[in-house]
């Protein structure tokens, strides 16, 4: 082998090695579940926040409010700062925009048409931020950063109505079908981006703190609770009696914020860092009333949750509840359609199905089956109709949204049974 060929070989090996490291950092196959949890949490926070802001819409963001556009143009005039609200002139337009934005936030939370709704949510959030920058504070910055990453990511593929629609379509063709769970290398890369965002945030926050004497000498926590904005007499009394707690609290904040960006990457230390960060933010929420900020931060930290933790949690839940078998009438089109819709929410695949026409059950007779759907439990108990659904909605996480309908004391059973019986009796006509 010539010298040039050998050096080419070494160079090629080096490139391959860098490529492998690059792949390991950014491009592993991964489901979107951690990002979906962030999406749902951030969506809930946005919906709650902007619904509460509705009565103040014109005051906060209108021309007759705190920041007329003329004043905004004088105070903030960067051409890269854009807002849809710059172009809306009358209150009705603002209310229409707000209604659209809220609808998109709800769709974003539920994961409905997520691939384009997420961009409207980002545009709306930036529009509110830029229309009145004086009202902009920490949590808005974090939201903008996280939303942009969620826009890059292929979200809406799990824990979403988009996934429900996909599963339902497959089950309409074959009730036993289980469409493949989505996973991709790009999902992993976007999860990594969100992790880096949270780590950078903690790093800069810690570095900012250790530059100040108050943090260095350990009395910053006292100063926070005695300051004009975060005065809390109860906490102050406790701290005044035990000033050592002030030192511990101050240094613990720095320790967690400083350790987080370096130690959260290791598999073994990650759980401790996550618990530390969550504990920190719960303190902020309850002692300083920064619950919106804290909730959004915790949702950002969800990107560090290993998908296998969630899989284990799901498996544990499934094992604890035990298998459930729903027996239906395969000759009834309505039954199959409604079963497809129902089973589409069973993300953990807890429910098995059986068509009694092709595969009779040894627990429930065909005569019973002609009258109602049945749910058979591992102890061979068989629950008919409404009671079957009632049992399932409490035990399948994807169906928990139905609990209020099935568990209103007295009313649910009072109306549920006759409604179910009527549908069962008329199912051939539906």
């Amino acid at each position, binding site marked *: 082998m010539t010298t040039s060929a050998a050096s080419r070989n070494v160079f090629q090996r080096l490139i391959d090695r860098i490529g492998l490291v690059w792949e390991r950092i950014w491009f592993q196959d991964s489901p979107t579940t951690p990002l979906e949890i962030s999406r749902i949490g951030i969506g809930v926070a946005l919906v709650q926040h902007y619904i509460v*802001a509705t009565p103040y819409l014109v005051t906060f963001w209108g021309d007759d409010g705190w920041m007329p556009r003329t004043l905004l143009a004088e105070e903030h005039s960067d051409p890269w700062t854009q807002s849809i609200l710059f172009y809306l002139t009358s209150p009705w337009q603002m209310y229409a925009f707000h209604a659209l934005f809220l609808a998109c936030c709800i769709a974003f939370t539920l994961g409905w048409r997520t691939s384009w709704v997420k961009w409207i949510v980002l545009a709306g959030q930036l529009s509110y931020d830029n229309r009145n920058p004086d009202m902009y504070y920490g949590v808005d910055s974090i939201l903008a950063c996280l939303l942009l990453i969620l826009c890059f990511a292929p979200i809406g593929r799990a824990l979403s109505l988009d996934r429900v629609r996909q599963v339902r379509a497959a089950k309409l063709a074959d009730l036993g079908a289980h469409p493949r769970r989505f996973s991709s290398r790009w999902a992993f890369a976007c999860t990594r981006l969100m992790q*880096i965002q949270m780590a*950078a945030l903690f790093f*800069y*926050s810690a570095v900012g703190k250790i530059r100040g004497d108050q943090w260095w000498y350990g009395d910053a926590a006292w100063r926070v609770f*005695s*300051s*004009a*904005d975060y005065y809390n007499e109860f906490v102050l009394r406790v701290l005044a009696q035990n000033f050592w707690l002030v030192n511990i609290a101050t240094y613990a904040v720095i320790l967690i914020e400083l350790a987080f960006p370096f130690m959260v990457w290791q598999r073994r230390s990650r759980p401790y860092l996550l618990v530390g960060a969550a504990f920190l933010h719960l303190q902020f929420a309850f002692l300083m009333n920064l619950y919106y900020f804290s909730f959004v931060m915790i949702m950002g930290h969800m990107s560090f949750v290993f998908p296998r933790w969630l899989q284990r949690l799901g498996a544990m839940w499934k094992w604890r509840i035990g298998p459930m078998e729903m027996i239906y009438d395969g000759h009834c089109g309505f039954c199959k359609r409604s079963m497809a819709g129902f089973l589409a929410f069973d993300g953990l695949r807890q429910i098995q199905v059986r068509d009694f026409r092709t595969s009779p059950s040894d627990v429930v007779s065909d005569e019973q089956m002609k009258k109602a759907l049945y749910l058979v439990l591992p102890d061979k108990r068989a629950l008919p109709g409404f009671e079957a659904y009632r049992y399932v909605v409490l035990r399948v996480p994807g169906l928990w949204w139905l609990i209020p309908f099935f568990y209103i004391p007295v009313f649910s059973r009072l109306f549920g049974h006759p409604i179910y019986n009527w549908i069962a009796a008329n199912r051939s006509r539906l």
Partner: protein
Amino acid sequence: MPQAIRSGLQRLTYVAMSILLVWHTFAMVIGPAPESSIIGAARSLAQPYLTFFRLQNEWEFFAPFVGPGYHFSYVIEDAAGEKHTFTPADRLNNWHPNSIWMRDRYTVIMTKPDVYGDAAGAALCLEHALLHPVSVTLLEVEHSEFWPVDLREGKRPTDAEFVKAKTLRTVSCPGR
């Protein structure tokens, strides 16, 4: 699609994704970094992206210093010459998001009274119309340090000895 073209497209997608990841990571790290000549040069490259997506933040929560803070207060003078002092933050419910928005509002008024004073004064005259206000005097109340020994002596951070009021502006009520 021929295999060669498909493979080329996949490679191109991979490169594009990698460029986006490097770029965004660069923006996330450079955005909050402290000013220096090298950071300044790097930031100027990313500035439009940082500004457009609001990615430029310092992430300095309560840092490097935690000040005792300020609160906003105002005095309404009514037609009879009587003065009524109000501290609006006292009326806020800390569990309602508007407590944060309102505090931001008060901070802005205190920071730029010349810019926001007229609008704030007009709004306060309207809010207290029942008092028949003639003018509103906007105040910035500066807190001073408060220590455990003060608390043990039964004092509170809002007691007169820990606060110092500074008049920002007096605004006449519209129609007066």
